[in-house]
Structure formats: structure tokens, C-alpha cells
């Protein structure tokens, strides 16, 4: 059902630009090489993978480059060179000088600490991406926001500011906001790290119940075993700015426990310096 390609050093060029078959239309191809400079440190990210399942988890310890890869998919980070193709669309190609800006990628993003606009109400946060330049929301968009509020159990909180609601409600607001524009791909950056353990499991169940209603492919970044196990069909294991392995998680899971699959990957990530 899902086509997984193990990554070798790189993807043969031209393979996905030539013909657009059904696999191409479903797959995410990422082959990027970039440097990120923070004061005093330089981080080299060289991420190459291809995955065709609907739920892809980028897994690895912190500082392994998985969040940066997600940023590159969203168009919030421009790699020095490489290629990014998402479901048949070329988002980035350094050779062809293609770089679709973030605003045209139609990608929804759930940020790690949600990045809800503190000056706007829950309602206005969700409606943000639907707002026309002038005037109020269109009738159909207002209906859509109301529907999302209802679905995420936020109708009562609609007029409140993010600071006035609970952590779980904030997360659902961020999810509703990301889904409001009808994205073709949803990116989730460590969606549960901001929550403590008991709440985490509840939120995970809630989030996935909501997401099941939307037939939308997703890429999630996580270093958490349980998150990955609940979510992943395909696993892209990161270690120190490299992709170590692309695993057909769903298939492996039939015969192995999560620990059996993930522990060696985590160990490998820690050893590859």
C-alpha cells in the first residue's frame, strides 16, 4: 500500500521531475543541504529522504535537524541547495532556481508552542488565514470558523485570548487555525512537548480524533516514542543533521515492538557525531 524507498546517498536526479505518476502525486521528496549559523555554532543539515505514506514522522534526538527540515518543507527556511517536492509540486529546486514562498505552499503548520497571536481572540486566530485584505469575513468562511470551533470544542472560548485558555485548548486553537485555510499538507512540530505527561495522552487522542475527520497528509516532528508509535506510517530517523534511515514503520510494527524499532535508531543517532 505504501511505497517506501530506503535512502541511499541521494535520489537519482530527474526521476520525479520527468513523469508524474500516482506515486509522485503522493510522495514527499526532500533532498536538501544547508548550513544554519547561530552565534558561535554552525550546523550542517543534509537531509535526504523520500516517503509516500500519509503520515510521516521525523524522529530523532533534539539538535538532529528534524525541525529545520520541517521549516524547509514549510518554506520558512531556504536551504543552500537541493530539492523539495511535495505531492507532485516542486517547492524548491536550487538548480532550476525555484523557491515557492511559504505563503503559496498551502501548507498548514502547528508550531511547537503553538505561536498563537496573543493580541487576537481564539476566533480571530482561527479566522486569521481566511481574512480578506479589506472588510469582514465572507459568509462561507464564518461558517467554516464556526464549524472548526465546534469540532475542536472551543465554541465557549471563541472570544477569549490565548492567555486566558488552557494548554489543551491552545493546542486545539492552533490546530483549527492551521486547518482553516484547507492546507494540502499539515506539518506538526513536536505537538505535545508543551504539555505534561497525563495531559499529553489525552491530547494525543483528541488531536488524532480531530485529524481523522480531515483527510490530510501529515508530517510530524517528534523525539517521543509514544507520539511516533501512535502516528507514524513512515519513519524518517534523523541523527546529527543527517537522515539515518527511512523505515516502513507500519510494516515493521506488525512483528516488532516500538522499542525494538526505535531504540536502535536513537542509539545510532547519538553515536553518529
Amino acid at each position, binding site marked *: 500500500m505504501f511505497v517506501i524507498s530506503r535512502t541511499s546517498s541521494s535520489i537519482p536526479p530527474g526521476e520525479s521531475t520527468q513523469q508524474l505518476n500516482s506515486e509522485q502525486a503522493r510522495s514527499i521528496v526532500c533532498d536538501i543541504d544547508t548550513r544554519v549559523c547561530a552565534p558561535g555554532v554552525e550546523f550542517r543539515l543534509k537531509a535526504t529522504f523520500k516517503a509516500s505514506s500519509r503520515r510521516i514522522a521525523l524522529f530523532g534526538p533534539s539538535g538532529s535537524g528534524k525541525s529545520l527540515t520541517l521549516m524547509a518543507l*514549510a*518554506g*520558512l527556511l531556504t536551504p543552500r541547495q537541493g530539492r523539495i517536492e511535495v505531492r507532485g509540486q516542486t517547492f524548491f529546486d536550487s538548480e532550476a532556481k525555484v523557491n515557492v*514562498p*511559504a*505563503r*503559496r*505552499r*498551502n*501548507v*498548514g*503548520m502547528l*508550531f511547537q*508552542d503553538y*505561536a498563537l*497571536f*496573543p*493580541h487576537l481572540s481564539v476566533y480571530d486566530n482561527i479566522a*486569521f*488565514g481566511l*481574512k480578506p*485584505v479589506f472588510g469582514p469575513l465572507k459568509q462561507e468562511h464564518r461558517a467554516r470558523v464556526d464549524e472548526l470551533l465546534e469540532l475542536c470544542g472551543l465554541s465557549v472560548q471563541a472570544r477569549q*485570548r490565548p*492567555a486566558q485558555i488552557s494548554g489543551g485548548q491552545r493546542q486545539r486553537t492552533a490546530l483549527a*487555525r*492551521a486547518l*482553516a*485555510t484547507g492546507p494540502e499538507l499539515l506539518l506538526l512540530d513536536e505537538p505535545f512537548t508543551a504539555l505534561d505527561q497525563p495531559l499529553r495522552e489525552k491530547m494525543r487522542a483528541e488531536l488524532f480524533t480531530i485529524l481523522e475527520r480531515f483527510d490530510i497528509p501529515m508530517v510530524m516532528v517528534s523525539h517521543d516514542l509514544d507520539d511516533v508509535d501512535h502516528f507514524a506510517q513512515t519513519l524518517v530517523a534523523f541523527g546529527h543533521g543527517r537522515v539515518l534511515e527511512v523505515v516502513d514503520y507500519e510494516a515493521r510494527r506488525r512483528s516488532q515492538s516500538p522499542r525494538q524499532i526505535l531504540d536502535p535508531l536513537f542509539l545510532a543517532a547519538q553515536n553518529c557525531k
Partner: protein
Amino acid sequence: MDMTFLFPVQLSLRVATLATLIALFIGVLAGWVFHRYRFPGKELLDSILSLPMVLPPTVLGYYLIVLLGRNGFVGRWLESTFGVTLIFTWQGAVIAAAVVSFPLIFKSARAALDGVERKYEDAARTMGYPEWRVFLRVCLPLAGRGILAGTMLAFARAMGEFGATLMIAGNLPGRTQTLSLAVYSATQAGQDSLAAQLVLLISVLCTVILWVSGRLLTPRWQA
């Protein structure tokens, strides 16, 4: 009661308001450019743009005369193209006050915009917002208080402007004599009660401005 002392008051308010509006527009724009873009010599340019804050006002006045005077580069162009002279006019005082108060807005706008976390801008970008809308809907509201506080300081500074105004606009009673110039003239002429009235007025005005800007700096929402 002699009401002539009111002319400097209304002139100062007019000059300071216009100067603040000009400084606000250019200062916020410059602050945004400095927030948004990286370019060589950026910090050097920041220092140069902040110079009016630390240079003696007479030095600024000298620069402005060199630039805007009859033989100045800009002044000659203005006169030949529009037939406009800024020297010894109240409009010249507006330019002087705008230059002096510009750094206060530029500095606070840059700091306030830099204080807006990138994730908010990024969130707006993924929701289809072009850069100018990100600026209007995310950066400005989140940096608004800082910019407003800087604007109040700029207004107070423009109200009190003396040196550069004297050099470029002169001290012509009823034409270019602003409040601070009137205080100087009254003191020189021994009109102590007039000087006292004006001093009291400007003190109260500036106190109110500082108090309001202080209140604007206290947070209204938590992130």
C-alpha cells in the same frame, strides 16, 4: 489679558505634531527594514541614523543649513523645482524637529519589532500572508506599544527642540518663534512672568506626555 503668548504654543503644537508624523512614518519604515533585512554596514548605518540623538542640536542645524539652505544641495533643488525655501519658515522648523526626534522612533521601532518573535511572523506566512500584511497584521500590533511609547518621547523632544530650529527657522516672533524659543526671548528681554507662564505650560505638557507613554509601556496581554 495679552494672548500673544499663545502663538508660540499653537506653533509648537503644530510643528511638533507634523514633525512627529513625519518621523513616525520614516522611523517605523526604517525600523522595519532593519528588522527584516540583513545588509553590509547595517550597524554603522544604525549609528548614523541615531546621531541626531547625541549630536549637539547646533551641529544638526549646521548640517541642515548646508543641505537645505539657498546654496545647499536639496535647498537649491527645492527652490528651482517648487519655488520653496525652508530657511526662516515654520516648515523649516518642522524639518528640524523631525530630524531631531526621528532616532527616538527609529530606535524604539527597531527594538519593538525585533522583540516580536519570529514564530508569529512565520505562522502568518504559512497562512498565505505576503510580507506587507505580516507587517500590518502581526508586527505592528505586537510592536505597537513600543512604537507608541517612542512616538510620545519623539513628540516631547520635538516640542522642546531649540538649537536646530533656531539655526534653520530663526526666532521670528509671530512666524517661527516656537515655545522654547519664546522662553529664551522672554528671559532675555526680562519678561519674567511671560517666561514663567511658558515654562509652566511646557513642563505640564511634557509631564503628561511622559506619564502617558509610561502607561503605554505596561503590558496589556501576556504571551
